[in-house]
Every structure is written in C-alpha cells, then in structure tokens.
C-alpha cells in the first residue's frame, strides 16, 4: 500500500470539506494511505516566488521540512497549494537557497520531499485499476473537466507523466464510465481571489466558462481545486442558477466506487447536484 503525507490546505477544512472527505474515502478504498501532515501551515497562495530564499519560499518550504521527517511523499489536493509547494520544492533544489531556507526555518529540508497532486496520485493508479473497482459506472453523465490554471501552468513546474496533467481528469472520468466533453475553456482561470475583491469580474469569468461548458453539452463540471469549485458555484450569473453543478473529481470517483457518505458530500454543495445524479443509485 502506497502511503503519503497529506497536506489538506486551509480551504479543505472549510469550503472544500467535501473534497477532503471524498478524497480520503477514495484513497482508503483504493489502498492509498494518507497521514495528515502534523502542524502544516498555509502555503501562502498570494505570495509569489522568484526562487530566492524569502518568505515566498520559506512559508511553503516549512511544510516540506515537516514532511521530510515522515519519509513519505506529500500529497496535495488543492491545485493552488500544489503549485506553491512545487515552487518551493523547485527553489530548494538550489543548494544555496536550501541552506538559507533551512537556516531561516531552523529545520532541515533534507531529504527533499516529492510533492504530488491528488490528481496525479489517483491517475497514476491507472484507469484499469480504478475501472475494475467501479460498482456503478456513471454512464451517460456528460462532464466538462475544468482544470483551471494552477495545475496546468507552467508545465515545467506542474506537469506530470510527460504532459498527462492536461488530460488526467478526463481519463479518470472515462475510467468511471462518465463522458468527458471537449470544450475550449478547460484551462482558463476562474478568477481566483477576484471572487472576493471584484465579484462582478469573477462572475464575468465564471459565466464565460459555464456558457462554454453548456454549449459543449456538459451537464456538470468537474474540478480539482477548492477555489475554482467555490467560484464556479457561487460567482455565477442568474442564467445558471440550478444548472451545471460542480463536482470534485473525487466525489464522482466515490459515487462510481459505491462508497458510503456520498450524500453528505452532496449536501454541502450550493448548486444541488442531485438532479444530475438521479439516474444513478447513490449509496450512503
């Protein structure tokens, strides 16, 4: 059984609760061990790293230092946190930066821990491995896989398996029997923190995404980032009220695997996903 240190990030304790729960349930069912990293700290999503040993590297690097003690790689569900921790990992590969950061943290950052997104870890199991455990294939469910920006760019930082980061969600959806549709906005930014500071602008961005997903024939969107999920659900115009629910990819994996607790996850959504799932049998 492969085991990871688990970095939930700040949102998964709050607005991303269902991402955390569905991810834990899916990992348990698929034989992936998760141990939450003790005393993890915020990755500093609004800090930007230029690779030098300032707080933009040191803040996320503290998590890598803590993870180094566990002997396991670090699994990160939220795309935003994932990118920040990968930036820190990359900066620490420079010995001078690593020594300076270790001095600042008063913690060794050695060995340098691997940072893996939840998408990568689950995708890496292989579609057959997931498909054979599917109890309820999501046949006919047309989904728009929404990758957003932080798990897509820049590729030299966030890519895995030679470019598979760009199709991993689609391949996971195929593995559980759903129908990922092709659409042009899969990697377009949702507006991120503009949802708080300029909600009107965020709504313009979100509505553009929803219009494209709807035009391409999607019934729902699938995402791997709690900020994207929030923006897509809460910052949409009236035209999309009650339409196009937004799932975390792990929720759909959980439904397909027939796991318990799925209704609990659904209840947290502000855009009710039940109408889109009524054709399936929900366990738990």
């Amino acid at each position, binding site marked *: 059984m492969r085991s990871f240190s688990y970095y939930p990030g*700040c*949102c998964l*304790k*709050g*607005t991303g*609760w269902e991402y955390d729960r569905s991810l834990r349930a899916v990992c348990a069912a698929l034989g992936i061990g998760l141990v939450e990293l003790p*005393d*993890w*700290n*915020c990755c*500093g999503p*609004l800090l*930007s790293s*230029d690779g*030098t*040993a*300032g*707080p933009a590297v*040191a*803040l996320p690097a*503290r998590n890598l230092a803590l993870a180094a003690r566990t002997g396991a790689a670090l699994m990160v569900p939220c795309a935003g946190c994932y990118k920040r921790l990968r930036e820190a990992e990359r900066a620490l590969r420079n010995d*001078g*930066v690593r*020594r*300076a*950061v270790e*001095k*600042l*943290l008063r913690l060794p950052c050695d060995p340098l821990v691997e940072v893996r997104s939840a998408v990568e870890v689950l995708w890496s199991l292989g579609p057959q491995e997931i498909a054979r455990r599917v109890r309820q294939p999501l046949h006919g469910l047309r989904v728009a896989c929404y990758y957003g*920006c*932080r798990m897509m*760019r*820049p*590729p030299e930082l966030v890519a895995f398996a030679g470019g598979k980061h760009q199709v991993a969600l689609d391949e996971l959806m195929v593995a559980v029997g759903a129908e990922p549709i092709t659409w042009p906005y899969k*990697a*377009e*930014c949702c*507006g*991120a*923190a*503009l949802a*708080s*500071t*300029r*909600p009107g*602008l965020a709504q*313009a*961005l979100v509505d*553009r995404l929803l219009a494209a997903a709807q035009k391409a024939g999607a019934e729902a969107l699938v995402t791997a980032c709690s900020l994207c999920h929030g923006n897509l659900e*809460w910052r949409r115009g009236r035209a999309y009220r009650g339409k196009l629910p937004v799932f975390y990819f792990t929720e759909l994996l959980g439904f397909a695997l027939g796991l318990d607790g799925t209704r609990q996850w659904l*209840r*947290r*959504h*502000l855009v009710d996903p039940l109408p889109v799932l009524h054709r399936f049998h929900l366990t738990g």
Partner: protein
Amino acid sequence: MYLVTPGGKETLDPGFWREVRHKSGQPVELCYHCQMCQAGCPLAPLVPVGPNRVLRLVQFGARRSALTAEMIWLCTTCEACSVTCPNGIKLPRVMEALRELAMAAGLAGDRAEAVFRRVFHEIIAARGRISELFLMLHYKLAVRDFFRDVGLGWRLFRHGKLPLKRHGVEDPREIRRILRERAEVLE
C-alpha cells in the same frame, strides 16, 4: 519627454524599465508587443490597459500610468501569458513588482486587492493558517463592505462551509519569524 495620456501629460522616466527589470527579474525590454499575452489573458477584455500595454508603459517610462494601471491588481497569476510569451517574460512577476512599487509610492490607495493581501497575511502571521469565515469577516470589515455577500455568506454557513472553529499551527511565532526575516542565500 512626455506621454500624452487621457489624464494629461506624463513626464517619462527613462530609468523606469531598468528598475522594473531588476525588481521583477524579467527582461521587459524584450517585449515587442506580439500581444499573445493580451490574447490569452482572461482579464484583458475587461480592462482598458491589458498586459502588453502595461509593459509598453514600463518601456516608455510612464511610471505613474504603469503604477496606477488596474491590470496590475487584477492579475491572478494564471500564467496564460507566461507560457505563450515568445521572449519568456513572466508577466505575473512584472505585475507583482509593479504592485510593490505602487504600494511603496503610495499609489495603491485602498485598493481592495491590496487590502485583501494585507488581511490575508495578517491572519497567516496570527495563526499560520487561514480560516475562511474569519478571513472574509476581517476583509469585509477592512473594506467597509458589509452588505454585499451577506446572503452568500449565510448560505455557505448553512451548508457547513464556514466553520466557526479557527484552526492554526501550534506556535504561530515560528510563522511570524519566517514572514519577517529575510535570509541571505549562502554560497
């Protein structure tokens, strides 16, 4: 030399582009305005001065126009620009540098994005982690926007998305120290 802008004549600062290049680490002088960034930026259609125009202002030395451009505050670091720039300019880093220069020059005013960043980092310094309910309460208080998202906030709360319990690291002083200190890179 001066630039004529809608706001009037602006005296140009020929050293400005070097200052921005140094601060951002990006070769802003290489931009030849192919507008790939403008074409890919999700915010570009929504602002009068988009990403490549901001670089143009920097190249001209139009310091004030560059530092008061709305674009620098709306950039979400999505990097649609970075991956398509033929000269490898990472525009989000340029936007970050311009934000810092704007704040230092007192030109950020009470921009919502500047306030949001300040509140965000105050909470990280206080607890080491963000609790979303408290982030939004602090932020709304700071920008005096009490009514706009009340309905949404209530719905989120009812859906269990905004727990009342705050979380944090065991010793936030460690975090404050990290945010405060700068380390010299050891060779």
